[in-house]
């Protein structure tokens, strides 16, 4: 493959995660943390950082060892790798940022079952060498951070009347309630659909695709 083409591809792998294949807004992946922790911009940002850390580390590791893992046990291996990094992130947060760790609560360990990570591992990292895998994970990670921060900022401005803790006015309580999370995200996705005016949009949320062959059917 020509060098120029590789460069172009790398750039493409990076940018696609930011908009075209934005994990939250376009692929509707990782919805649980997206809705749950975005009561404030800082919470959304921290969650995005933690998830990106796990995503990038596990993508790189999986890409390095991809040829050593027999395909029958790959999902189990990926899960162990992911869970290891999640535990590391959790211990790090508990040790150094107890406040954030408390605010995110069980959603830090739940990064394990965030479909973005297993999805990228299966679709991308297990089929590409280290550098593209890293760039892809970085792009997706930043896309996820962006989405969570945007949602968190909107909900913080409207629901608490503050931005990253500053600014004050009479807030609309509903925005930081669970209902507000669903409604804000729904409106935001509709707005992005409007911007894209995409014709081939799926009718029903694809949601987390079947965890590629974690079922017994593959182990025959």
């Amino acid at each position, binding site marked *: 493959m020509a060098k120029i083409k590789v460069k172009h591809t790398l750039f493409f792998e990076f940018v696609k995660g930011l908009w075209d294949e934005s994990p939250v807004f376009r692929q509707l992946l990782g919805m649980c943390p997206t809705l749950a922790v975005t009561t404030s911009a800082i919470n959304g940002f921290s969650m995005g950082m933690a998830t990106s850390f796990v995503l990038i580390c596990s993508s790189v590791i999986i890409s390095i060892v991809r040829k050593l893992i027999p395909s029958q046990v790959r999902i189990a291996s990926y899960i162990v790798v992911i869970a290891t990094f999640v*535990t590391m992130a959790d211990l*790090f947060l508990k040790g150094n940022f107890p406040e954030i760790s408390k605010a995110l609560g069980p959603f830090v360990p739940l990064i394990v079952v965030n479909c973005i990570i297993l999805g990228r591992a299966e679709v991308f990292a297990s089929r590409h060498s280290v550098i593209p895998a890293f760039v892809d994970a970085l792009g997706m990670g930043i896309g996820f951070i962006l989405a969570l921060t945007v949602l968190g900022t909107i909900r913080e401005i409207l629901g608490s009347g503050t931005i990253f803790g500053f600014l004050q006015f009479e807030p609309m*309580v509903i925005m930081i309630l669970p209902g507000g999370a669903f409604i804000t995200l729904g409106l935001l996705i509709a707005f992005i659909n409007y911007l894209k005016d995409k014709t081939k949009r799926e009718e029903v949320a694809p949601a987390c695709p079947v965890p590629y062959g974690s079922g017994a059917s593959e182990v025959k």
Partner: protein
Amino acid sequence: MNKILKMIVVLTVIGIISGSVLAIMYQWSLPKIIENQIKSTNEAVFKVVPGTVKYKENSVDDLVYFDCFDGTGARIGTAILCSGNGYQGQIKLMVGVNADLTQFTGMAILEQLETPGLGAKIAEAKFQAQFKGLASRPPIEYVKGKSPSRPNEIEAITGATISSKAVVDIINKTVEQWLRLK
């Protein structure tokens, strides 16, 4: 056969690596985590029993309380850990009583899942401050929409009476349980 062997070897190796990495990471972060826990307990105890320099943790059955001492070693009060059901989930709080059991010296909400913007106001300083200097006998009562007139009354938060009531009930119940131990 060879394939199965490979699967087992790979999974075992991954398991061992993962286990050892986590064990090292855990050893490294454990002191900090413990330090954080002690720090948050310290903060709560010092807040609900002002003037505390040293405290000693006690527990009887499910009840956890901290005897507090000032610089000279005299007992100045007790901080009691309370928990119970609120409007939406468990509320955990700490309440301080002075040495002769006549007054509360302070209250701190440690954990709550109340409605943000409404019930969650129990975690605000304004509500918590009402418990400072409150008479501990008879049991605390709450009033709605007016200023408290008796020494054992607090004012409930507007729009969050149930959360306020839950806090009062939790404190009354736990303190009574603790007094029976004495």
